């Protein structure tokens, strides 16, 4: 019975990771860059929710999504677009710079003291089992978002353009796809998902700090790499897997202090066995 609860908790946490990992993986697939600042977009979302929560919960969610999308697009236009076509290392370092910038801006605006806001949605009781409603909502919403995203990528024109750009940017451009627009859309979707993830992660830990997004960001990044970065199903599988592993490790007293170390070790082992991740495609490299 305890194991079942652990599993549900794990899947719910995994859903959060998967949503963030989707942002990483889509941006990687299309712009061929690691967006290190993605974790901090979650933090931006979290603070926006915290600001608007006293007014209206629904407004808070909408505001968080809109604001995150704006921040994501601005970051892409100002910091990443000028570097398109230069070395990957330069882009990566800029992304790290953006991450630090967002964190320190948040600290200037909101201070470094953690802000707490209790949100209790109650718990579902089935016999002896008791599962928080927030956990269930997180699980259901994350699955819904993943299904919606899959449908979007498969059946809409924009979604298929995204696939085309990720496969061959030059060819896609010759076919009349506006690559810059597609990259912008990708950042917008990724940031919207990050805002949702920020909401659910906030429901889970209920404390806001400026490094709120750092840990789930790194974990989700790990999840995306485990699943094979650039692959959308890979991010989902990796996220759910990582969430379940984390909750199982935390439920065993001897292992719980080492949870993070276990997760990162699994990442290293998977990469050593399969360097492109579980569902990643192998790329041929030309000289």
């Amino acid at each position, binding site marked *: 019975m305890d194991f079942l609860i652990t599993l549900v908790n794990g899947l719910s946490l995994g859903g959060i990771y998967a949503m963030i990992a989707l942002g990483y993986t889509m941006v990687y697939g299309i712009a061929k860059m690691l967006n290190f600042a993605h974790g901090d977009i979650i933090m931006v979302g979290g603070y926006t929710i915290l600001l608007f929560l006293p007014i209206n919960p629904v407004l808070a969610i909408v505001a968080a999504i809109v604001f995150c999308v704006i921040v994501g697009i601005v970051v892409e236009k100002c910091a990443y677009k000028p570097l398109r*076509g230069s070395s990957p290392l330069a882009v990566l370092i800029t992304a790290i710079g953006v991450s630090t910038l967002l964190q*320190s801006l948040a600290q200037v605006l909101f*201070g470094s003291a953690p802000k707490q806001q209790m949100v209790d949605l109650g718990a579902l009781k089935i016999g002896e089992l008791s599962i928080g409603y927030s956990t269930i909502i997180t699980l259901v919403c994350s699955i819904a978002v993943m299904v919606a995203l899959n449908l979007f990528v498969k059946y809409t024109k924009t979604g298929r353009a995204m696939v085309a750009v990720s496969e061959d940017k030059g060819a896609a451009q010759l076919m009349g796809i506006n690559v810059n627009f597609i990259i912008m859309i990708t950042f917008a979707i990724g940031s919207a998902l990050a805002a949702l993830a920020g909401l659910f992660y906030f429901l889970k830990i209920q404390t806001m700090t400026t490094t709120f997004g750092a840990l789930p960001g790194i974990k989700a990044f790990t999840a995306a790499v485990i699943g094979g970065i650039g692959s959308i199903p890979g991010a989902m599988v990796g996220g759910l897997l990582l969430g379940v592993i984390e909750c199982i490790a935390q439920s065993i007293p001897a292992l719980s202090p080492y949870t993070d*170390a276990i997760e990162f070790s699994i990442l290293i082992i998977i990469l*050593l066995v399969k360097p492109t991740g579980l569902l990643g495609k192998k790329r041929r490299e030309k000289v």
Partner: protein
Amino acid sequence: MSKFTSTFKSIKWKKYINYIAIAIVTIVLGALSMGGALPQSTLYLLEKIAISIILAVSLSLVVGFLGELSLGHAGFMCVGAYLGGKISAVIASTALGNGIVTLIISLIVGGICAGACGFIVGLPALRLKGDYLAIVTLAFGEIVKVIFQNSSEKSFGGPIGLPTPRFDKQYLFIVAFLVVLLTLAVIQNLIKSKHGRAITAIRDNEIAARATGINVTKYKLMGFIIAAVFAGFAGVLFSYSQNNVSSATFDYNYSIEILVMVVLGGMGSINGSIISATLITFLNVQLQNVLKGDLAVLKDLIYALILIVLVIYNNAPALKGFREKYNLRNLWHKIFKPKHDPAKVRDDAARWDVVPTKIAMDEVLSTDIVIDNVGDNSADIGERGGNK
């Protein structure tokens, strides 16, 4: 006497300028310190600067010359700090006491342990590239941090941190600067040797390097291990300069700070790393005294902005013309050596893609396609093959 002057002239002093500068600074400050003229805060600042230089120069071997992004440099430092600090505490309780021998032994132990970790991290580096490797080094740093954080109180102090033995403050920074000189001697000579050229060849094109018979495995591991050993040295010095070593210090942000030093100094430039490490550490320590509380974060804000602007300025394809026109080096030559203006000397052989020896492909395929430079796949047809 004339023989002496001729040997004196034949030495290329420019090559050794950084050794000489650091040696002079060490001797002058060392003399001042022995006279008791330096306050405690200056000694602390000097130790910090030496540690930063060691870290920046060793990271620049991996990032600037080997071309792999390492986000776990603080992890290697952490290993050095904990193991070196522990060994010195153990030795200090024996007959050897708290002297220079203890410091040297702990430096060696810390360096070897960090080097062993460098070997372990270097192994995935053989199979992984770029972004994947960056995440593995990041994961390594986090794993090391978690392990030391959860160690028992008797072994490594656990969450409270490891208390470290003291070394005479007046002399510690001299030892630190001697380690800086050792770092420079090893890394600079390595880079200028055959091995160094192999390492830069791997950075420029791994497959081509492999095809010319360079042992990529060996050189990649070599780069990682050497960088890790020196990070370990820096860690041991760090544990000596602090009262207490806490694993929370060696987090992801510390690795980033070292990376910022390397990037600001210019990747692939050791002297640049030295200068930027000195400047950043100096500013860090000084700003810490000025900015208190929440304002302390303004420092990070400024660093982040400088980092972004500098990287975009140095790398953006759109700014290429501007960069070539207003290059510091070109300006320097214009002012001081007007005859040797490197901007005017163009080696045509190096720009074969603009020399009209072959049929201009653009004219043959005279369609009206305008291709933005979006990524590496979409370079001009005429340049294809030339830019990779």
